[in-house]
C-alpha cells in the first residue's frame, strides 16, 4: 500500500526531520507576525528543557530496574558472564557517564539502543518503524471520523439547547466520559461483530474489519469535540456581536456557521496537532482487542518482557510527541487567532 509507505517515510524513517519541518513552517508563519517570535523561542526553549528533564528522569528510573531487563537469556548465564555483558553494554560505568554515552549515541547515531528481549539485538527505531504505520492510518481515519461525528453533534447541541439533540448528545458525552473505554470497546466488539456477521479479529485486506476498530476509537474524541464545541458555541452565542448580527437580520444558518462556529472552533484547534501526533502511539485497547499489529501493545509487551531499552525508548518517544504536540498546538493557535498576543499587560495585579 502506497499510503502506508508514504506515512512510514514521513512519520517513521524521518520523524525528526518531519517535526523540524513542521516547526520551521510554524516559524515562517510567526515571522509574518513578528511579535510572536520571542514568545515562540521562549516556548521552544522551555519544551527542550522539559524534554531533557524527562529523558534524564526516565533514564535514571530505568537504571534502577533489575538488571535482567538488559541481558537476554539472563537465567542461563553465570555471574561472571552477566558482569561481562553488563560491562560490554556499559552498564557498570558510573551513572553520569552512562547518561552521557546515551545522549551521544542518540544525537550522533540517532539510535535509541537495541532491544534485549522483544527482538533480541534489534534496533529499537526499526521495531517501532515496522509497527507505527498501521496505527497511524487507523488513528488518522478515526480522528477524521471523530471530527465528522463530533463537530456536527456539538453544533446541533448548541443550536437546540435543552431539546432532543442536546439531551441525546449530553447522554452520549456522559456515557463516554464516565464509563471506562475498555468496557464499551469490549461490548462494541462483542455485539458489533455478531451483528455484522464478521470475525472478531482485524484483517488488513478486508475493509469491513476496519469499521469497528475505527468507530470505537473515534467515540472518545468525538464526545470531547462535541462537548467543547457546544460549550464554546454557547459562550459565543451569548456575546453582543451575535445579538447585533441577529438584530441586523443575518440569517440563522449563516450566523451559526460563519460567526459562531468559526469563533468557537479556534480554541479547539490547539488540540489537533497533539491528537494527530498521538496516533503514532496507537490505541492499546483497540489494538489488543482486535489483534492489530500496531504500536498500541508495544509498550505493554515491552513491560511484560522487561525489555528495558525498548521501554525507555517508547516512553521517551511518547513524551516527546506530547511536548511537540502541545507546542505546535499553541503556535497554531497564535498563528490562526490574531487576537492572541503575548505582550505583557502592565498594571495587571
Amino acid at each position: 500500500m502506497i499510503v502506508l509507505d508514504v506515512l512510514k517515510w514521513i512519520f517513521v524513517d524521518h520523524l525528526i526531520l518531519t517535526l523540524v519541518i513542521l516547526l520551521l513552517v510554524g516559524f515562517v508563519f510567526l515571522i509574518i507576525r513578528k511579535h510572536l517570535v520571542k514568545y515562540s523561542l521562549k516556548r521552544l526553549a522551555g519544551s527542550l528543557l522539559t524534554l531533557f528533564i524527562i529523558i534524564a528522569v526516565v533514564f535514571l528510573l530505568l537504571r534502577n530496574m533489575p538488571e535482567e531487563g538488559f541481558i537476554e537469556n539472563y537465567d542461563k548465564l553465570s555471574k561472571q558472564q552477566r558482569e561481562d555483558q553488563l560491562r560490554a553494554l556499559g552498564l557498570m560505568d558510573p551513572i553520569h557517564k552512562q547518561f552521557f554515552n546515551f545522549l551521544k549515541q542518540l544525537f550522533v547515531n540517532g539510535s535509541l539502543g537495541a532491544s534485549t528481549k522483544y527482538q533480541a539485538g534489534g534496533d529499537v527505531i526499526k521495531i517501532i518503524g515496522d509497527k507505527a504505520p498501521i496505527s497511524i492510518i487507523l488513528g488518522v481515519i478515526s480522528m477524521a471520523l471523530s471530527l465528522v461525528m463530533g463537530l456536527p453533534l456539538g453544533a446541533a447541541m448548541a443550536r437546540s439547547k435543552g431539546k432532543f439533540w442536546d439531551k441525546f448528545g449530553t447522554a452520549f458525552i456522559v456515557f463516554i466520559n464516565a464509563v471506562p473505554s475498555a468496557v464499551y470497546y469490549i461490548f462494541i466488539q462483542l455485539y458489533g461483530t455478531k451483528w455484522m456477521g464478521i470475525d472478531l479479529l482485524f484483517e488488513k485486506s478486508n475493509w469491513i474489519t476496519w469499521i469497528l476498530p475505527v468507530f470505537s476509537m473515534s467515540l472518545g474524541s468525538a464526545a470531547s469535540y462535541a462537548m467543547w464545541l457546544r460549550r464554546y458555541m454557547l459562550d459565543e452565542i451569548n456575546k453582543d456581536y451575535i445579538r447585533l448580527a441577529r438584530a441586523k437580520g443575518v440569517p440563522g444558518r449563516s450566523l451559526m456557521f460563519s460567526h459562531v462556529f468559526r469563533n468557537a472552533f479556534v480554541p479547539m484547534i490547539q488540540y489537533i496537532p497533539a491528537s494527530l501526533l498521538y496516533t503514532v502511539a496507537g490505541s492499546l485497547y483497540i489494538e489488543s482487542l482486535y489483534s492489530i499489529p500496531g504500536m498500541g501493545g508495544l509498550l505493554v509487551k515491552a513491560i511484560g518482557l522487561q525489555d528495558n531499552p525498548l521501554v525507555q525508548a517508547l516512553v521517551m518517544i511518547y513524551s516527546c510527541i506530547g511536548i511537540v504536540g502541545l507546542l505546535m498546538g499553541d503556535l497554531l493557535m497564535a498563528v490562526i487567532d490574531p487576537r492572541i498576543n503575548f505582550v505583557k499587560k502592565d498594571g495587571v495585579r
Partner: protein
Amino acid sequence: MKMFFEGKKRRVEDNINKVIENSAINEDALFVRAEFDPNAGEKTGYSNYSYWRSTFRAFRHNRLAMVMASILVILVLFTIIQPLLPGQYDALTGQTNPLNENKLLSAKPPSLSTVYMSVPKGTLLNAVKVNDDWYGVRNTLTTIKNDPLSRNPIKFSVLEYGEEWCTIRYDIDYSGEYDILNDGKLGYIKRTAVNGEAIKFETNAKRLPAPMPEDLNDTPYTTYSWQEIAIYAEPEDISQSGDYLYVESEYIDLNEDGSAVTNADVDLRDYPSKMPFILGTNSAGQDLWARIWSGTRTSLWIGFVVAIFEVLIGIIVGIIWGYVRALDRIITEIYNVIDNIPTTIILVLVSYIMRPSISTLIFAMSLTRWLGMARFIRNQIIIIRDRDYNLASRCLGTEPSRIMIKNLLPYLVSVIMLRMALAIPNAIGSEVFITYIGLGLSVSTPSLGNLIIEGKSLITVPGQQYQLIYSSLVLSIITISFYIIGNAFADAADPKNHV
C-alpha cells in the same frame, strides 16, 4: 492604619461629648444604653442566605442527579454492609461440591434459587450425609458396574420393557438360589444410557451367554447385563447425570439400609445451601455476587483515597501557588515540566517500577491527578484574591486563614466537589487500564478492573458472558452516577447559580 482609626474615633467622640456638654438636654432621659451583644452586631447585614442550604436547594432541583444520588447511596451502603449480611459467600473461596471434592462449582450461570427440582412426599432416595443439616441424595439405588474380570454379570428379570423405562427385578448378591423373577428387588433402569445410546441387553459371546427373547417386549424374561447400568428407585432420573442433589436433613426419614424417604414435598438443591449464587460463579468456582461487591469496595476505596489525596495536595499546592507571589514562577515552571508528560506514561511507568498493590495504584494515580486541581485553584485564587471585597477584608485586618475559609473557599467548593466526584470514575478507569496491561492487582484482590478483564477473557465462550455483563453493569452505574452527581453538585455549589 490602626492609629488612624483610633485617632479618628477619639475625635468623633470628643465632638459628640462637646455637643452634649453644650446643650442643655438631659441625655440619660432620652436614651437607654444598649448592652454589648455580638449577635445584634450580625443583624445589621441580615439575610437568610446560607451557602449550603442554597447549594442543596439547587441540587434538589436536578431530578436526574437526585435519582442517581439515591441509587449511589444505596449501592455504596450495600457494598459496605454486604459482607455482614447472613449467608454471603466468601469472594475468594472456590465453592466445591461436598460429595465430589474435586468438582468446583465453576462457571455456574446466574440463578435466583438453588432449587434444582421438587419431589413429592414419599419419594424413595439414596441418601449420604454431608453434615448435620444437609444430606446428599439421588434416586439411583445402585449401579451395576461393568467389571471386565467378573465372571458373574448381574442377572435381572425384565418385567416391562417400556419406551423410556424398564421395570426390573434384580439382586446384586444373587447366587442363583431363588427365583429372581418373583423374589428380587424392584427397580427401574433407563433405556438410554449416559452416553445417549440405548441399552442393549446383548450378550458377550465369549462370556456367559444371556438368554435373550426374540422380541424384547415379550416380557417377562430373565437376562444379564455386561454394561454399566444405574438402577433407579422410581422411573425418574432426578439429577440427569446421576450426581447428588442436596436436601435438608429434617425433610427425610432415613431407612436402615441407607435409603431415605421424603416426609414432605421438598425441594432438592444443587448444592447444600439455601443461598443461591445470584450472579453465578466464575471459572474458579468463586461467587460472582460476592466478588463484584468486594471488587466495588476495593475500587471505591482506591477512588476515595485518590480523591482525598488529589484534593489535599491540590488545595495546598494551589493556595501556595496562587497566594505567594514569589513562588508563582518556580511552581509554574515545575508544573509545565510535569504536565507535559502524558499521564498514562507516568501511570504505566510507576506501576512497572513498583510492586502491584492497592497502595501502588493509589500512589501512581495520585502522582499526576493533583496537578489539574492545583492549577485550577491557583487560577481561581489569583482571580479572586485581589477583588475589592478581599482587599476590604485585608484592610480591616482579617486574618489570611479567615479570608481563605470565608471569602475564597465557597468559590472553590464547587470545583473541589467536582474533582472529587470525577476522581472516582477516573480511578476506576485507570485501574481497569492498569489491570488490562497486566500491572494491576492480583486475582486474589477482587476489583472492578480485575472482574472486567476476567470477564473479557471469556466473551467468546458461549453462555459465559454474564461474568462480563454484570461486572460492567455495576461499574457503569457507579461511574455514571458519580459523573452526573459531580457535575450537578458543581453547578449547584457555584455561588453564581444561587438566586
